[in-house]
């Protein structure tokens, strides 16, 4: 037994000598690390080509997922920020001060977002932060940004509503923006039997709550309302239920496993039997996740679409693709909301005559009107935006505009 043990030990030592020794490993590691740092290290900062020596640049922080599961959306927003910064800097900056962008990638991991936000504020010294996609990430970072670091925070994603934190500004849609236009369009075009579906978390539940309220006020039949776990991938029983119950309109807030859901629904013959789907958060950038062929005629409702036939949209789209001709991240609604937030921030700086203090910016923002932006004019009402809402239908590789509602009030934090 003892001999066996000794021989085992001897073998392990020999293997160590043949393979890699402790000293050798240490030396190699140090050399590799030094080489790497010397050749590749660089910050994530986009500096302007000119400077204002007297006051310095306006530093804007992007808190976005550039890697991980939400990367495709994060990259779109980051690229849009770069397009905006170039446009502003080419036109002489904001009150003569250039804009400098900083980005922190939180890798789509919520607990890491707090650290990333802290870094932007404390190490990069930014004056404002924009970003995050999911409400869970926003809720995780908002105390750090708005209270501890006392910075203005612009949230570019649509969400379930109810966010009234001071210094936090939401620049995309909430249920009060889209519920009425979407449901009204579906009703006037003949839908009668509705099913409200969603992934099981706050965002789908709150949107469905808004749909339910409108439908019930109009005495419309809601056949069923159901929620599914985010990691569900099989929807066979649900699809059978939709078809058996003769649902003619699915109001969908399914996010987890949505490709599987839409594909199964399409293959079940639901659309051929006259069924329709309404989903407020679909635009051209979502084709990455759900191909157009699985959602024929889907009715969507948002504040902007990529191919919206407006001069301002076309100008931004051209600038985006001129700067990033080979990009796969399309400038969808979230990059558009990021752009809108940056415009509001620019106007707030002008209104305060260059005072970048958070108190001044927060006081200045409500009431600011943008003559034109992505999707049309916009106005900051409290800490949310009033803007145009469009109802659109998925046709081929684009969305065809069906209805337009001008300057819809968010009715949040009143």
């Amino acid at each position: 037994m003892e001999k066996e043990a000794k021989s085992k030990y001897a073998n392990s030592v020999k293997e160590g000598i043949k393979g890699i020794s402790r000293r050798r490993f240490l030396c190699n590691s140090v050399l590799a690390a030094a080489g790497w740092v010397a050749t590749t290290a660089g910050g994530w900062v986009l500096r302007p080509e000119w400077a204002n020596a007297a006051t310095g640049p306006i530093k804007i922080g992007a808190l976005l997922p550039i890697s991980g599961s939400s990367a495709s959306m994060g990259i779109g927003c980051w690229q849009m920020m770069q397009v905006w910064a170039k446009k502003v800097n080419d036109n002489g900056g904001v009150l003569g001060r250039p804009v400098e962008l900083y980005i922190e990638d939180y890798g789509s991991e919520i607990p890491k977002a707090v650290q990333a936000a802290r870094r932007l504020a404390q190490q990069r010294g930014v004056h404002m932060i924009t970003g995050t996609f999911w409400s869970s990430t926003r809720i995780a970072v908002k105390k750090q940004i708005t209270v501890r670091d006392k910075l203005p925070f612009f949230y570019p994603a649509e969400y379930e509503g109810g966010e009234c934190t001071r210094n936090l500004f939401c620049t995309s849609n909430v249920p009060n923006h889209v519920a009425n236009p979407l449901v009204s369009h579906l009703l006037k075009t003949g839908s009668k039997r509705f099913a409200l579906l969603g992934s099981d978390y706050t965002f789908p539940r709150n949107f469905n709550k808004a749909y339910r309220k409108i439908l019930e006020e109009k005495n419309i039949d809601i056949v069923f309302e159901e929620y599914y776990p985010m990691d569900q991938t099989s929807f066979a029983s649900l699809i059978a239920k939709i078809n058996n119950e003769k649902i003619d309109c699915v109001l969908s807030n399914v996010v987890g496993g949505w490709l599987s859901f839409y594909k199964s629904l399409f293959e079940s013959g639901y659309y051929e039997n006259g069924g329709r789907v309404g989903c407020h958060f679909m635009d051209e950038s979502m084709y990455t996740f759900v191909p157009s062929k699985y959602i024929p005629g889907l009715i969507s409702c948002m504040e902007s679409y990529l191919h919206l036939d407006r001069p301002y949209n076309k100008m931004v789209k051209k600038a985006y693709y001129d700067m990033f001709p080979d990009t796969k991240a399309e400038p969808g609604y979230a990059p558009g909301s990021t752009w809108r937030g940056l415009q509001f921030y620019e106007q707030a700086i002008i209104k305060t005559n260059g005072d970048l203090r958070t108190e001044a910016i927060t006081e200045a923002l409500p009431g600011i009107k943008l003559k034109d932006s992505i999707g049309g004019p916009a106005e900051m009402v409290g800490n949310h935006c009033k803007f145009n809402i469009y109802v659109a239908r998925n046709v081929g590789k684009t969305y065809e505009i069906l209805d337009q509602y001008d300057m819809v009030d968010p009715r949040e934090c009143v």
Partner: protein
Amino acid sequence: MCLKNKINMNKIPKYRALPVFEGAVFALLLFVPLIADKFVISSLTVFLLLSMLAISFELCWGYTGILTFGQGFFFGIGGYVVAILMNKAQVINFYVLSAGAIGIGILLGLFFGAFLFLGKRVPTIIFIAIGTMTLSYLGERFFTGWAWVGAANGQTLWEVVEVFGVEFIPGVKAFYVVMFFLTIIYLLCRFVVRSQLGLVCSGLRQSEERLKFLGYQIQVPKLIIFTFAAAIASFAGGVFSLHEGFVGPTSLGFTFSAYAALYCLFGGSGTLIGAIIGTIAIEMARLYLSDINMIKHYWQIVLGAILIVVILFRPHGIVGLFVGTRERIGYFGFRGTRKLKVKADKYV
């Protein structure tokens, strides 16, 4: 007698590297705030809290042979208890909040530990690994769907608590508060693993069959260590949520449990200090790798590759580079009073 002692002293190295290593790491940590900026200090505070989670895993796996992937569950539960006490019961006393976190850790540790260990049959490593993994998974799912605690969005902890008379907000003071707690936990764990209970646990790790043959009720020490580790993880989670100002269902999911295992493997399994070093090393790498433009979209893959290389080529982790196998495995009792027969091959 003198001759005997002389012979024994020759068997044991004249001085041990591990205590020096431990002392150096703690001393270095103490002086970091003098040279680092606020962000680095805040980040390091988070790393120290995560290293408490890693220590709780190390106690189970490195010292007792319990392969648990449920430490993240206890970590998150601690955070939720603190959040619920603060947001629903308006408790802002740190000591009450901590007691709540530790209490729930002990209770749930005992409950799930009893379920896992005290069955008729002795549980296998796989049974425990899958069981604890399921615990984390179910915990995350349960809290994701529970609207009262914020569901998938989690909760923000707005209130500021005071610890030892200072406000617990990220910065130098919070760093030293966490450092103090880490030192206490470390010393406590060190005492436990070097005690007779620790000796039994080491025996369990090496060969349960032999321990059983010697007459030990082997499930009892396992349950004690599992519960102790759960309490540490829960406390760490509670303080983590206070420091970061939020808690969400991802905090108690499998991800945190897997990270805890990774920290320990990278730092060097079988030593408590390895858990701290592994945590700081991996988290630092995560922090600075994302800065490198060349790998900006792939830094997570690069980090994964580095971890795989290190674990493949240096299975004893970072600590294994400086401290020999014999010393990592541990001495029991006082130096020089007995002859130690440690067979290195058993611990490879």
